[in-house]
C-alpha cells in the first residue's frame, strides 16, 4: 500500500513568498518546508493570510515575489489543475461539493478528474463508512448536513491520491463531536496514502493533537515556528492572537 | 410533445383535404407572404390592403366568372418578417392551405426564401424586389411586379440634369442586398451618362448618419443619390446632408415613400432640390382609385404608395385566372398571364420586359412618374412612359 510513498517527488517548499493586492501586503517573505509525508500546522489570527497562502501554494493566485517548489519543480503561478496533476491538492474552508450530484457522483467526479479508477473508493471505504457517507450514497450533496458535506469535500480531495494535501480549516464549522473525524481523516491520509499535509486550522486542540510542527502567521509574516507546545506558549504568539483583528478573512471561499 | 404536434398536424392535414373538396364552389385563393412586423411592416401592410381591396372589387363587380359562375376571391396574408425563412415558412403554410396563387412578397430576402418553395409547390407568383435575381429562367412561373432602376433611373437622371449642373454623384445605400443591388445599377447608369460616381454603404440599423454624410461629402459630389435607402433613413440622411451644408440636388432612385422622407427630414424646404422615382403618377385616375378604396373598404388606402402597384398586380392575377378559366391550375394561370397585355384601368398600359436584365420576359413595365421638389416647392409629377426593351 505504501508503495506510492516511495515514489514521492520530494518536499513542498515555500521560498520567501510575498503577495500584495494593489498596495496592500497580505503576505510577506514567508518561508517554510513541508517534507514528504510530513505534517505541518499553520495557525494565526483571522486575517493573517492563511487562506491566501493556500491559494498561492495551490496555484490559484500568482505570487508577488518568491517561489514555491514541489520537489525540484517550481509550481507557483501554474494552473491549479496542473499542480493537482503533480499531486498537490487543496481542500476548502467552507463546503465545496458539486451541488445537484449524488455523493457517489461527487466521488466519481473526483476520481475522473484525477484520472484514478474506482478501486480507490475501496481503499477509502473505511473512511466513507466512518463518516456515514455510505448511508447517503445516492443523496444529493447539497442536502447533506453541513458536517457531512465538509467530510465529503475532504474525501474527494483524498480520492485524487495526492502527495501533498493543503487543508484549509477542515474543522471550521464542525460540531465538537464531529471533530474527531478530522483526526481520523488526517491519520488515514498519512497512513494509507502517505500524504504530506499542510494543516491550516483555528482549533488549537486539534493542532496540538495532530501536528508535530507548526508555524504561526500574523499580519502576513511568519512570527514563529516549532513544536506546538513550545510555540503556543510564546508571548508574541499569544499577543498576536489576543490583539488579532477580528475581521473576516477577506479571501472567502465560495461554497 | 413533438409527437402531439405531429398528431395535431396530421389532423390538420385531414381537415385541409376536406376543405379543398368543399372549396370547389369557385373561390380564387390568393396568398400573400407579406412583412407585417418590424421596420418594413408598412410595405406588407400596403400589399395586404391592395389584395383585400381587389378581392372585394372582383366579387362586387363580378370580374371573375368561370364557366358562368361568378367566383369569390379570398386573401390570406401571412407575416413573412422580411426574412428568407419567414417567407419560406409563410409560403409553405399557404401551400398547405391549397393556395397556389401568390402575390408578394415585397423584399429581396423574402423573395430569395419564397422562390424555392414556389418552385417545389408549382405555384404562380407575382413578386416585388429590386434584386438582380428577383426573377429568372430558373423560376418560370414567377413574375415581377415592375421594373427596377434599370428601367427608370435613366429618365429621372436626365430630368435632373436639365435643371442642375453636376458632374459627380455620391450614392448612399444600406450594405445589404436591398441596397447594393439598386445602388450598383444606379451607379452604372450614372457612369454611362458621364457622371462620376462614389458609392457609400452604411450598416443597416444605423440611426445617425452624420459620419456617413461627412464621408460622402469629402469627395465634393455635385449630387447625391439615396438609391433604395429606406424612407426613414433617407429622411435623416437628407436632414444631415443639409445640416452639413450640402446644397446640390438629391436623388432617390429607389422606391416610394416621399411623404415619410419629407416628414423625417423636417419639411419640404429641407429637401430643397429633390427628385424621386414614383412608381405611379398620382393623377385623377389614381385619385379615383383612392376614392373607390374609401367607398368599398370604408377606410382610406394604406399610406404607402406601393399600394397602387399591388392593386395592379392583383388585378393582373385575377385577369389571368379569368383568361385561364381556372382558379387552381397555376400553370394555366401563368401561361395565360404571359399572353395578357400589361394594362390597368387606373395605371395605364405597358409591356412585358425583362429578357435583357433577367433573361426572362416576365417583368411588368408601365407608366411611372418622376417626383420633384425644386427650390423647396413640390412640382407636379412628370409622367414618364412605360419603359420598353429594345
Amino acid at each position: 500500500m505504501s508503495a506510492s510513498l516511495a515514489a514521492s517527488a520530494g518536499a513542498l517548499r515555500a521560498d520567501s513568498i510575498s503577495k500584495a493586492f494593489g498596495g496592500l501586503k497580505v503576505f510577506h517573505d514567508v518561508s517554510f518546508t513541508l517534507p514528504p509525508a510530513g505534517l505541518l500546522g499553520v495557525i494565526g489570527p483571522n486575517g493573517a493570510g492563511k487562506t491566501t497562502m493556500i491559494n498561492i501554494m495551490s496555484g490559484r493566485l500568482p505570487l508577488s515575489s518568491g517561489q514555491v517548489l514541489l520537489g525540484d519543480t517550481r509550481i507557483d503561478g501554474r494552473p491549479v489543475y496542473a499542480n493537482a496533476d503533480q499531486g498537490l491538492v487543496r481542500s476548502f474552508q467552507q463546503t465545496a461539493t458539486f451541488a445537484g450530484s449524488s455523493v457517489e457522483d461527487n466521488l466519481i467526479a473526483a476520481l475522473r478528474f484525477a484520472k484514478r479508477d474506482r478501486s480507490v473508493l475501496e481503499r477509502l471505504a473505511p473512511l466513507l463508512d466512518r463518516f456515514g457517507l455510505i448511508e447517503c450514497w445516492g443523496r444529493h450533496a447539497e442536502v447533506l448536513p453541513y458536517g457531512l458535506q465538509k467530510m465529503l469535500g475532504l474525501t474527494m480531495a483524498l480520492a485524487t491520491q495526492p502527495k501533498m494535501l493543503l487543508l484549509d480549516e477542515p474543522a471550521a464549522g464542525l460540531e465538537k463531536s464531529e471533530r474527531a473525524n478530522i483526526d481520523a481523516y488526517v491519520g488515514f491520509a498519512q497512513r494509507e496514502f502517505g500524504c504530506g499535509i499542510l494543516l491550516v486550522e483555528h482549533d488549537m486542540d486539534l493542532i496540538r493533537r495532530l501536528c508535530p510542527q507548526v508555524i504561526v502567521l500574523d499580519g502576513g509574516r511568519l512570527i514563529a515556528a516549532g513544536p506546538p507546545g513550545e510555540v503556543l506558549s510564546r508571548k508574541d504568539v499569544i499577543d498576536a492572537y489576543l490583539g488579532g483583528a477580528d475581521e473576516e478573512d477577506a479571501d472567502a471561499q465560495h461554497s | 410533445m413533438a409527437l402531439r404536434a405531429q398528431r395535431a398536424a396530421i389532423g390538420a392535414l385531414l381537415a385541409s383535404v376536406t376543405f379543398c373538396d368543399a372549396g370547389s364552389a369557385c373561390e380564387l385563393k390568393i396568398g400573400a407572404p407579406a412583412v407585417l412586423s418590424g421596420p418594413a411592416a408598412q410595405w406588407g401592410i400596403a400589399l395586404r390592403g391592395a389584395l383585400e381591396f381587389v378581392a372585394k372589387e372582383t366579387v362586387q363587380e363580378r370580374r371573375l366568372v368561370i364557366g358562368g359562375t361568378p367566383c369569390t376571391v379570398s386573401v390570406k396574408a401571412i407575416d413573412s418578417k422580411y426574412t428568407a425563412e419567414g417567407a419560406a415558412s409563410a409560403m409553405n403554410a399557404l401551400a398547405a392551405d391549397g393556395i397556389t396563387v401568390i402575390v408578394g412578397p415585397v423584399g429581396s430576402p423574402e423573395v430569395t426564401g419564397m422562390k424555392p418553395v414556389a418552385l417545389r409547390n408549382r405555384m404562380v407568383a407575382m413578386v416585388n424586389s429590386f434584386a438582380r435575381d428577383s426573377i429568372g429562367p430558373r423560376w418560370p412561373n414567377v413574375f415581377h411586379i415592375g421594373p427596377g432602376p434599370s428601367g427608370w433611373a435613366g429618365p429621372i437622371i436626365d430630368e435632373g440634369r436639365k435643371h442642375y449642373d453636376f458632374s459627380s454623384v455620391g450614392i448612399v445605400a444600406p450594405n445589404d442586398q436591398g441596397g447594393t443591388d439598386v445602388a450598383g445599377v444606379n451607379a452604372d447608369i450614372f457612369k454611362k451618362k458621364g457622371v462620376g460616381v462614389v458609392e457609400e454603404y452604411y450598416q443597416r440599423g444605423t440611426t445617425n448618419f452624420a459620419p456617413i454624410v461627412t464621408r460622402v461629402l469629402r469627395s465634393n459630389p455635385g449630387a447625391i443619390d439615396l438609391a433604395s435607402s429606406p424612407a426613414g433613413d433617407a429622411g435623416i440622411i437628407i436632414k444631415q446632408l443639409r445640416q452639413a451644408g450640402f446644397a446640390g440636388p438629391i436623388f432617390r432612385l429607389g422606391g416610394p415613400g416621399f411623404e415619410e422622407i419629407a416628414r423625417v427630414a423636417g419639411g419640404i424646404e429641407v429637401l430643397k432640390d429633390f427628385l424621386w422615382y414614383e412608381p405611379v403618377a398620382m393623377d385623377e385616375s389614381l385619385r379615383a382609385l383612392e376614392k373607390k378604396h374609401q367607398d368599398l373598404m370604408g377606410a382610406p388606402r394604406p399610406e404607402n404608395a406601393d399600394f397602387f402597384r399591388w392593386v395592379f398586380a392583383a388585378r393582373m392575377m385575377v385577369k389571368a385566372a379569368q383568361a385561364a378559366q381556372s382558379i387552381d391550375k397555376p400553370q394555366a394561370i401563368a401561361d395565360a398571364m404571359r399572353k395578357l397585355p400589361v394594362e390597368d384601368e387606373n395605371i395605364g398600359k405597358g409591356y412585358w420586359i425583362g429578357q435583357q436584365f433577367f433573361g426572362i420576359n416576365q417583368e411588368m413595365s408601365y407608366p411611372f412618374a418622376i417626383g420633384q421638389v425644386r427650390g423647396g416647392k413640390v412640382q407636379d409629377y412628370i409622367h414618364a412612359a412605360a419603359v420598353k426593351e429594345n
Partner: protein
Amino acid sequence: MSNQASIRRLPQARRPALLGGYEWATLGLVGFAFAVPVLTRNPQILSQTNLILIAATAALGVYIMLRMDLMSFAVPAFMAIGGYTVAVLSLKLGVTDVILLGVAAFVMPALCAVPLGWLILRLKGVYFVLVTFVLTEIVQLLLFEATPLTGGSNGLVGMPAVTLFGIELMDNSQVLLTTAGLAFAGFTITALFTRYFRYEFTAIEKNDVLAESLGLACWRYKALAFSVAAGVSGLAGFALVNMLLTAHPTSFAPMSSVSYITYTIVGGKGAILGTLAGAALLVTATDLFALKGELSPGLFGLLIIVVTLVARGGVIGLAAKAAGRLRRASPAAPARVAPIAAVPARGVKS
C-alpha cells in the same frame, strides 16, 4: 473499523448508461421525423417539421454551452460558417453528396471555433455572453465584406440539389429527409457528447474552482464543447441553406441567436428534450402568430414572459413536476421516504 466490512458495505458500481431516458426519448422523436414524409405530403406539415428540426438543432449549440452555464450568442456565426461552407463547396467545387457536405458543415465551424475558443473561453460568465454576441456581429459583417467568397449581400444563390448516393434530394419531402438526417446527427452527437462528459460539465457548471483543484483542466473541456457546439450549429446552418437553396446573410442575423436561446430556455435547459420541446412550441407559435400580422411579435413576447414566469425550468421542468405531482397524488404509488430536510450551510467559522 474493519476494511473488509466497509468495502462490503460500499454500494456496487452502477453500469454507466450510454444515454439517459431524456436522450433516448429525444432521439426517438427526432428519428420519427424520417417517417413524416411517408405519413403526409402536406407541405405545411413538412415545412413545419423542417423548421422545428432546424431550430432545435441550432438550439443545441446553446444547450451544449449551457451545460457549463455559459450562454452563447455565437450560434448564428457558426451556422453561417457551416452553411456557407456547404454553399461554396457545391457552387464552386460541385460537391453535392450530402454526407460529404454534412461532414464539412460540421468540421469547418468546429475548426474555426478552436482558435476562437482559445481566445474567449478565458472570459467568465457574462463576459463570455457579450463576446459571443460581438463575434456574431463580426461574422455577419464579414459575410458582407468578403464578397468574392460569400457573394456579399446577395448571398450565394442557385445551389444544386444535394444528392445521396447519386440520387437528387429536391422536393419537399426529400428536403425534410435531409434536414432530419442532419438533425439526427446533431442530436446524436450532442447526446453522446454531453452524456460522456457529464461529470466534467456538471462540475464546471456547479463549482469550477473545486473541479480545477481536483485536477480538471476546465478550459480544455470548455474549448472542446465550444468546438462541438459550433459543429452542431454548422449542421443546422447546412439544413437551413439546403431548405432555402441559398446562403444568405439575413438567414444568420445576429439577433436570431436570441431565438435559439429562447428555444433552449423556454423548453427547459436541464434536458436535451427541452431544446426540441422549446423549438416545437415556439416555432409552431410563431407560425400561428404570423397569421395575426402586426400582433405576432407581441404575442410571442407575451408567451415568453408567461412561460418564464409560470414554468421555471421550462416546459420540460413543468412537465416533470406535473408528472411527479401526479405520481404522488395517486394512492397506488408507494409512499416515499420523507426527504431529509436541507440543512442550511453555516458559512461562518467557529
